């Protein structure tokens, strides 16, 4: 007569459990680090997208204002720490762009005051060409990350003046 011998299945040992948990922890850490990185990147991307959109809106606003104007004046503020651009439209409206103390403002004699951007700008420069009909708006934007380079944008617009 043969005897049936069934060996009972033992549970996991403490070492096995420790090894599995350690492996799981390492995997979770790796996956978590990747996910955090991706989320940070996505946040930075969203920030950049917003910046680009606001700069595009700013350039459109500037070009529309200049195209509707017939007179322009660039005024340096005290100690050259700020810049002002004064535009006068054919209908008599006066628009002033001011960059001072990290604030870029647009004031209109009809539409009040509007903050265009804050803290993302390194500097703003206005230039006028030799014949005084092309206004350039140079914008130096701070980098998104601490060590990323300053981005430079140049927007030009022609005044609504007499031309040949």
């Amino acid at each position, binding site marked *: 007569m043969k005897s*049936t011998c*069934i060996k009972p299945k033992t549970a996991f040992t403490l070492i096995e459990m420790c090894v599995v948990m350690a492996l799981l922890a390492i995997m979770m850490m790796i996956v978590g680090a990747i996910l955090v990185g*991706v989320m940070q990147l996505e946040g930075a*991307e969203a920030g950049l997208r917003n910046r680009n959109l606001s700069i595009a809106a700013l350039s459109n606003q500037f070009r529309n204002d200049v195209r509707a104007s017939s007179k322009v004046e660039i005024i340096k503020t005290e100690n050259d720490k700020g810049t002002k651009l004064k535009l006068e439209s054919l209908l008599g409206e006066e628009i002033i762009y001011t960059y001072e103390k990290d604030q870029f403002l647009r004031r209109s004699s009809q539409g009040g005051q509007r903050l265009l951007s804050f803290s993302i700008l390194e500097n703003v420069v206005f230039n006028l060409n030799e014949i005084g009909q092309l206004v350039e708006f140079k914008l130096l934007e701070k980098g998104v990350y601490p060590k990323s380079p300053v981005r430079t944008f140049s927007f030009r617009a022609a005044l609504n003046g007499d031309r040949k």
Partner: protein
Amino acid sequence: MNQHSSIKFGKRKGFTLTEIVVSFSILLTLMVVIAQTTFWCFQERLSNDNRFLANQVAINILEEARVTDWEKLDSKWAQSVQNLTHHSALPFDSVIDVKVSPSKEFKLVKDIVVQIRWTSGRNIDPREINLSASFASRILKTEDAK
């Protein structure tokens, strides 16, 4: 009792090679997918930046055309505005191509086409922009004008 039933449980000492290979393959696939998505994200941003900057440069050139005398809008003027040093924000490998030609439809009208091309970026992205504008003479010329 069945005398012939003999059940043997094998002693499992660890993962088999197949199990390890399969699990690592899954992990590797996941990591590759995440890395690829991140890379595409960067590429997309770069591509958008390039398109935006190129658009702005093309608009700037057309604005320059607006303030230039209509008579002076010719190939010489086109050559002068193609200089990349005036547009430092563009990608380093950009090429600006400006063409001035008389309009085929109207007299005293010139068509200006600004094309900006660059080579960096993915092949699937558009790597050029084209903007065109028509400029009419601002002096009225009549048949009997001297």
